[in-house]
């Protein structure tokens, strides 16, 4: 049994237009009477609620069926109804606490959602973004059996996003890898190991903050000369990438070294006591941008690392977030492939429960809010196609939805929030113009290397 695709409902986007129900009734009953819809949207005051089959993992409708007419399909996870076995006893409707299997008078038997064989009509009909067909399960099915290349007992903080990034990325990149982890949380939590043992199942080394990309260049070239194909990968923090590590990184990118450099951006030096880095955003509290009588957090905007890297005209540059794993994996695949041809740079945002001051169970939600407010933007770039948005920048949530989730912004004055809002707007406008090919610099970058 694997993981399965699923139809997800976001009530906050639903306005009760009933298009999903009409589409379902049309697909399943051949008429538009919503009583025949197997997805039922219910108005509840100003909100909308949902009754439909959850395709449960341990389905009670199946356990309650005396006629073996219901069964969970191991291949796609849907619960299938066999009309030739059903005896119309309705005991399945007693078992289901979700209103997901219901007697339909017109059909003369129970009906339930069958996910339209993987192309649900309701989701296609929803243009409000309230229904989504989540195929994230594919990731688990594809990589679930791949070997985790880190030891089980890494000492990351509770709810650490970076640990997720490390494990997910290396699992996919695979064991034919030499890994560089410059000073930061990644080696700090034990990936370089203790007492002569590494914390990885691949060769790992611990360069200085300054020379990660150049050491990796040498390692990669050495293997190339030997005729061995290995992935040369850096898992570096934003400090190691954007501050003192930037010189060697920029050099390797400019030379087109065949390296995959992953910047795990937690917006500061979180491992050594939460000092600011050049990736720390405006207004954020860190231990070196304190909040007090005079200090109000960082007074400069963050360096836009992924854009800087894009302007190196690398083989591949992308931003990603663990709240959007399908997107992250797709970009990882492209980055691995690009690193065989030239320099690939992946910038992954990694909310830090300890340094950003928020509860550990909210990590993915914080990562999601960052994207949904356009505080960070998901896109990728290659020299042929230029920059493409991975998700639209329109209909962003108000910035408060993100800022209010984080303790490091608790002190913000309205004018600071306004500044952040302005920065987000400016960044979004810039990225949008690049995506639309309107920016002159971009046009130049797209036509070839900048002389």
């Amino acid at each position, binding site marked *: 049994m694997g993981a399965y695709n699923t139809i997800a409902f976001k*009530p906050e986007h639903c306005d009760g237009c009933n298009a999903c129900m009409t589409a379902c009734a049309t697909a399943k009953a051949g008429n538009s009477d919503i009583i025949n819809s197997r997805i*039922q949207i*219910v*108005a*509840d005051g100003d*909100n909308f*609620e*949902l*009754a439909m089959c959850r395709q449960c993992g*341990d389905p*009670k409708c199946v*356990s*309650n069926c*005396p*006629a*073996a007419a219901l069964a969970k399909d191991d291949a796609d996870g849907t619960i299938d109804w066999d009309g*030739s*076995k059903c*005896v*119309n*006893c*309705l*005991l399945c*409707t*007693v*078992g*289901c*606490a*979700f*209103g997901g299997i*219901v*007697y339909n*008078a017109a059909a*003369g038997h129970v009906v339930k959602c069958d996910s339209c064989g993987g192309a649900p009509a309701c989701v296609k009909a929803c243009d409000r973004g309230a229904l989504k067909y989540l195929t994230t399960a594919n990731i688990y099915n594809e990589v679930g059996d791949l070997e985790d290349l880190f030891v089980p007992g890494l000492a990351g903080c509770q709810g650490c996003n970076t640990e997720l990034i490390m494990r997910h990325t290396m699992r996919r990149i695979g064991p034919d890898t030499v890994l560089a982890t410059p000073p930061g949380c990644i080696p700090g939590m034990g990936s370089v190991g203790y007492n002569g043992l590494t914390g990885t199942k691949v060769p790992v080394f611990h360069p200085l903050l300054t020379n990660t990309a150049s050491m990796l260049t040498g390692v990669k070239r050495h293997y190339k000369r030997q005729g061995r194909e290995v992935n040369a990968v850096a898992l570096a923090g934003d400090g190691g990438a954007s501050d003192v590590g930037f010189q060697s990184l920029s050099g390797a990118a400019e030379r087109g070294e065949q390296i995959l450099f992953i910047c795990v951006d937690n917006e500061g030096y979180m491992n050594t006591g939460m000092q600011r880095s050049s990736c720390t955003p405006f207004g954020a509290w860190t231990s070196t941008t304190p909040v007090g009588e005079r200090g109000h957090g960082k007074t400069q905007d963050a360096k836009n690392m992924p854009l800087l890297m894009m302007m190196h005209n690398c083989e591949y540059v992308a931003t990603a977030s663990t709240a959007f794993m399908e997107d992250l994996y797709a970009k990882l695949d492209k980055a691995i492939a690009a690193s065989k041809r030239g320099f690939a740079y992946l910038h992954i945002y990694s909310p830090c429960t300890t340094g950003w001051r928020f509860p550990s169970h909210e990590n993915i939600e914080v990562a999601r809010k960052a994207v949904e407010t356009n505080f960070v933007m998901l896109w990728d770039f290659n020299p042929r196609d230029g920059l493409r948005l991975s998700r639209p920048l329109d209909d962003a949530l108000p910035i408060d939805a993100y800022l209010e989730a984080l303790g490091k912004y608790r002190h913000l004055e309205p004018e600071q929030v306004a500044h952040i809002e302005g920065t987000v707007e400016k960044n979004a406008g810039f990225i949008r113009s690049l995506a639309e090919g309107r920016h002159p610099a971009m046009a130049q970058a797209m036509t070839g290397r900048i002389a």
Partner: protein
Amino acid sequence: MQQTEYLIVGASHAALSALQAIRMQDADGSVTLVTRDDALPYSPTVLPYVVSGRSAPERVALKDGAWFEQNRVGFIRGAAVTSVDAAAKRAKLSSGEEIAYAKLLLATGAAPILPPIPGLQDVNFHVLRTLADAIGLHRALPQTKQAVVLGAGLVGMHAAENLAKAGAQVTVVEMQPRVLAGYFDAEASAIIEAAFAAKGIKLLLGAKVSRCEAAGKGVRVTTDGGASLDTDLLLVAAGVAPVTDFLAGSGVAVDRGILVDDSMRSSVDGIWAAGDVAQAKGFYDGAKSLNGILPSAVEQGKIAGMAMAGDPAVKPWPGGVPLNTYTFFGQQAVSVGSQDAGEVVRKEADAKHYLKIVMQDNRLTGIFGINVPFDPGVMWEIILRRIDLSPVREAFIAEPQKTARAIMSRTWR
């Protein structure tokens, strides 16, 4: 002697549900399933449809041999457990074989009650509890012109409908003044009774059979009201009782069924019981009572299995809620909860529709409908969670299905 970690006696819903729960937690412990039927696992609930011919006997199996193999379960069929030595942790089978177990689940279900009617033992009659019973009844259908069904419970009513559809003249004799008295009140029962009468089925309600005797190839049934019915087929459907006779001397406490606590444990260490055989806490009064319905068997089996395997996620039995669904002549009757554990806040009935809602302190205690749509599983959960309906009381009473769905979606979605 065969040794097994888990011995499960019975092979219907409670047993299979327990087995699944055990395998969720314990992938390796040896499991043996013993059933007195010489058949693959099936549900007694499907049997009326085997009688009618809608379900082919070879297509009603809930699990097949491959499933047992896949789950590494030893499946012994056609062997009843005849005695249990709880101290030595051994069960003796009708085959003479003995099995040593570490943990024992009794899911032996129930068997038909034969009322003490003079002459009954001397005439040919049918019961309907096993697949063999159902196949026998199905075979008897074509030759049946006159049929008498004793009992207007779910089994009797299903059988009466099928016998009538097969062309027989059917009479149902019931001691209670109405049909399906366990699940519906007089008005609801009246709708069901009318549907049966319209199909030419005679219902002798409030009547008791005083004598049975052979009459030609058939049976003559005499009621205490003086009616005399000659029939080719007599079906006794006067209810069922838990199968516990094999527990004599075992030390397992039995009242009407095997007494169990909220994790389905019997009075004896290492022995659990679930399903129709178990006498567990009732939801409304907390008293231990029989509630022999399929959904309870599934729930209890799961709890027993989890408890037996030491699954830390096991939740205590919330208490039995009487509930059932009943389809008759294409109409749907649904009964969830107690008729009298509260005040009736809505009741309406016409010839084809019926709806009754019972609440106590703004909490749902029962909802009953005929040809009125609502989701019984959602209602059951609302009852079990004792959800305070005061903020939506009027809406719930006016539109129970829609309101309950909204409550579900925002409460346990």
